[in-house]
């Protein structure tokens, strides 16, 4: 081959290397760049001439230097012929640039290792897509998990609601049928007739309460509630709640009320706050039958106030602590006690509408303390 032909071939080769989209490189045995094509400047924003003679380590992300050194050293020792990996470089403007590195050993005619050569492929888009895919997969899995949990809660609610609706209906029907028999047999003076009317009235009350809770839930879902704060007598409001609940208790238990701090009026929505306290206090009564009476303490401080509801009942199991404010959730230890799993959920929603908080501490079989805190 004549010299002219060789020069022509070299020119073609140079043009080919320059036109390759990836960075084509050569390093010496110390890892200093000795050749870089023009893609280096395009991707990394550094001037090719300025970069030559500088070690490739100095262009790496600081956290990846050790990783790359661990791959480069065995090549220089001759134990590895090539390496391929993904690593972060840093562009001139300080951005991370993910590169897929393919490097192989370069030896001289005597077989001595004189450096490496290979390509750096810009894989930022691949990495971004991969990250986005990973993120999307995580989000999808989370939403599937959430959906499954919600479906389970809803199906629990359907079973629960079915039970809660059907039982009072069965009682009412049996009372109606007995009353019909008394009437058909001209036993109008039968004292049991009155008993059945009372039974039906009680069951209607229970059903109304259940329907009210389910409707409240629906209104919360549709964001129909707004908090209309006004100056209220908190102690008077709590006393009214206590009185209303004491009247409908089957046992003779009452609820003690104590007040700490300087009494004053507070800003709150009386309907929502009374509803929340009613739900928590009726739970305190319901889950502590045959135990000490529950009590409420109101604590006024200069800037805020708390309502602390304490019962000495069955407590909340540890495995239920994170779920107690979820709609429809009922702990394992309350299966035999009537309920919808909506009371604490509604209470929390109404307290949140006041920008307040509600929290609890509980010990199984000892009791529970719910604290409403308002700023």
């Amino acid at each position, binding site marked *: 081959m004549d010299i002219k032909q060789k020069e022509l071939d070299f020119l073609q080769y140079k043009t080919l290397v320059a036109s390759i989209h990836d960075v084509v490189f050569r390093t010496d045995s110390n890892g200093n760049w000795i050749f870089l094509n023009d893609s280096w400047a395009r991707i990394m924003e550094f001037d090719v001439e300025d970069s030559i003679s500088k070690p490739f380590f100095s262009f790496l992300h600081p956290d990846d230097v050790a990783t790359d050194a661990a791959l480069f050293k065995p090549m220089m020792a001759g134990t590895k012929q090539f390496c391929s990996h993904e690593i972060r470089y840093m562009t001139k403007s300080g951005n991370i640039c993910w590169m897929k590195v393919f490097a192989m050993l370069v030896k001289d005619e005597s077989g001595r290792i004189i450096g490496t050569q290979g390509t750096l492929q810009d894989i930022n888009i691949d990495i971004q897509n991969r990250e986005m895919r990973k993120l999307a997969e995580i989000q999808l899995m989370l939403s599937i998990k959430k959906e499954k949990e919600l479906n389970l809660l809803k199906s629990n609610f359907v079973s629960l609601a079915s039970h809660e609706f*059907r*039982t009072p209906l069965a009682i009412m*029907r049996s009372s109606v049928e*007995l009353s019909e028999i008394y009437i058909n047999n001209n036993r109008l003076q039968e004292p049991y007739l009155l008993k059945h009317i009372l039974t039906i009235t009680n069951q209607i009350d229970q059903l109304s309460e259940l329907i009210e809770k389910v409707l409240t839930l629906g209104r919360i879902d549709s964001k129909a509630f707004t908090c209309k704060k006004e100056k209220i007598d908190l102690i008077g409001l709590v006393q009214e709640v206590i009185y209303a609940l004491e009247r409908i208790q089957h046992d003779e238990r009452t609820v003690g009320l104590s007040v700490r701090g300087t009494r004053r009026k507070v800003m709150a929505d009386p309907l929502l706050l009374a509803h929340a306290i009613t739900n928590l206090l009726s739970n305190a009564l319901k889950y502590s039958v045959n135990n000490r009476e529950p009590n409420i303490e109101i604590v006024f401080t200069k800037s805020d106030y708390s309502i602390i509801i304490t019962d000495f009942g069955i407590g909340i199991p540890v495995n239920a602590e994170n779920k107690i404010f979820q709609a429809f959730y009922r702990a394992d230890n309350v*299966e035999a006690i009537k309920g919808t799993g909506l009371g604490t959920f509604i209470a929390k929603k109404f307290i949140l509408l006041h920008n307040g908080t509600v929290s609890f501490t509980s010990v199984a079989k000892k009791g529970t303390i719910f604290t409403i805190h308002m700023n």
Partner: protein
Amino acid sequence: MALILLIEDEQVLRDNLKELLEMHGYTCITASLGLEGITLTKNNNPDLVLCDITLPDFDGYRVKIELNKLNYNPPLIFLTARTDKEDYAKAKEVGAVDFITKPFRIKELINRISWILNKKS
């Protein structure tokens, strides 16, 4: 006169059903818990058991399973507010003769009881 054991935790419903069953000529004994129901079955050998599924101590299926184990097999009807297909299947699986959903008419219940008792005799 056939003896019926009614296992139902809801007191008002228990009292009402007992009265209605007695008006229709049956003798009725009652239990409010599953365990109590098993003991009453062992001690009184009823002709038929009416059993709620949701009970405070353990569910109605377990009542039937325990009775099966003890070889006390009076026909058992579940009276329940549960309406899931799974519940119906489970009731069949444990060997209940019928599954009646609350609320029910007493006439319907009496018809089923007399049919089962006639079949038994």
